[in-house]
């Protein structure tokens, strides 16, 4: 994967001894996106370097307020799962995978009255919408409406519209799987925390991370399972 050749890397490593000098002599570059000149990065691993750069180099607007009431700094911090999946490039060892699955199972929270289907029409809007959690000068305003599920980014859903292909097609999902207790539980858990089935999957943990609330999950499930939903037509 690395296109860097060995000699270059060796040269780079040999040059590390020079680094103290280099960094000490680093010239001034004024402005806010600037702190790198003063630190000896080379004593750190690539990961430590990355962390340093994210939190100390003014590369990100870490003070932006977020919809969840924190600052963007918290968004850049990794939890254990994110860290492990990043480190292993989403290929956890069998032992790590076992731990991820167990932790994901333990994270599940279910609705009080059991897993029910909501309104498939509302679910369709949530599945096809990209609103929510975006930060900018005009960040998505969650007091106006709740976040969408953005399932369409990764999945084909109804045959009438083009969805993404980062995940498997969910077209005809209810028709092929049927609306059993087991199917409902599986989809619910996939939306809540899919690492229970696919450790280090690319699919977000939308229940666990609070992106979608119970009602939204129920509506999206109806969109996937209800016989009248365009997904199953």
């Amino acid at each position, binding site marked *: 994967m690395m296109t860097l050749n060995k000699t270059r890397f060796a040269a780079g490593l040999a040059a590390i001894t020079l680094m103290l000098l280099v960094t000490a002599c*680093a010239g001034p570059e004024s402005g806010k996106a600037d702190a790198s000149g003063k630190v000896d990065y080379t004593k750190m691993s690539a990961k430590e370097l990355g962390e340093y*750069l994210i939190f100390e*180099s003014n590369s990100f607007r870490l003070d932006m307020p977020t919809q969840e009431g924190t600052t963007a700094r918290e968004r850049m*911090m990794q939890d254990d799962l994110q860290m492990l999946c990043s480190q292993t490039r989403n290929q956890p060892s069998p032992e790590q995978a076992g731990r991820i699955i167990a932790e994901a199972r333990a994270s599940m929270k279910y609705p009080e009255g059991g897993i029910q289907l909501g309104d498939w029409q509302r679910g369709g809007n949530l599945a096809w919408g990209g609103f929510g959690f975006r930060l900018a000068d005009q960040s998505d305003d969650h007091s106006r409406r709740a976040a969408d599920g953005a399932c369409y980014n990764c999945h084909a859903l109804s045959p009438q519209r*083009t969805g993404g292909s980062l995940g498997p097609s969910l077209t005809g999902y209810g028709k092929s799987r049927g609306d059993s207790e087991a199917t409902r539980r599986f989809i619910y858990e996939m939306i809540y925390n899919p690492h229970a089935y696919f450790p280090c999957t690319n699919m977000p943990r939308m229940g666990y991370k609070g992106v979608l609330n119970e009602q939204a999950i129920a509506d999206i499930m109806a969109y996937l399972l209800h016989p009248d939903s365009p997904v199953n037509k």
Partner: protein
Amino acid sequence: MRVLLLPILLACLGAGLVLAQPAPVPEEGADSIADYRRMLREGNPGELWVARGQQLFHAPRGPNAVSLEACDLGLGAGVLDGAYAALPRYFEDAGRVQDLESRLVHCMVNLQGFDRAQLLQDAFSTGERESDMEALAVYVASRSNGMPLDVQLEHPRELELYRIGETLFHRRSGPLDMSCATCHSRESRRIRLQTLMNINSPVQVREVMGSWPTYRVSHGTVRTLQHRMWDCHWQMRLPDVEYVSDATVALILYLTEQGRGGVIDVPSIRR
């Protein structure tokens, strides 16, 4: 003037836009291919930005009323041909690794006397305001047209930033657990109709990296790699990444090295 001109140009281009990304063509008939590419470029509104960038670059500007002709983009003061092909690189006078846009900011501040904060704020065109930086960047990049991407990656700071870029590319975070690799590490994956560059496909990365800055039809302006970095972070629900920050330069260096050998051909044109 552009307000009037653009729709007309676009209307004239019409279906031509669809053809604007030529399929890889065989070696033979190199001349006709060059002709074809030139033709496409001539129909590309981005050429207006190249022309404006050329004018901006060579005109005396800023509080110091000097041109950018004394700007050293890595090959010596005033050398433009081929300079972009070897960026990002470490610059002694700045004490840091800089990409095309960081270097232009550096020169505009240090030679022309522009205010750095203002330059950063005005870097991307908005509906109301046209960016000079986009024009300058695409002009300088176009002076490497036909040359392969060839970053140096020899200075320890360059190697270090490359490693950071690689790490950042694969670092998952945020409410959607996303890293760049979430969307950019599989073959032929789409977000709806947009095909996503696969970092593991050297052919694709070469093609992509050789073709920025690009004229974005949906934005009605030329966009740069810095803008693409900002855009993708926004999609990931991460905080705004600062213009010409170390994080952006690290990612651009990583991507450019992955795209080594890609032939520069700008401005390209995109949706």
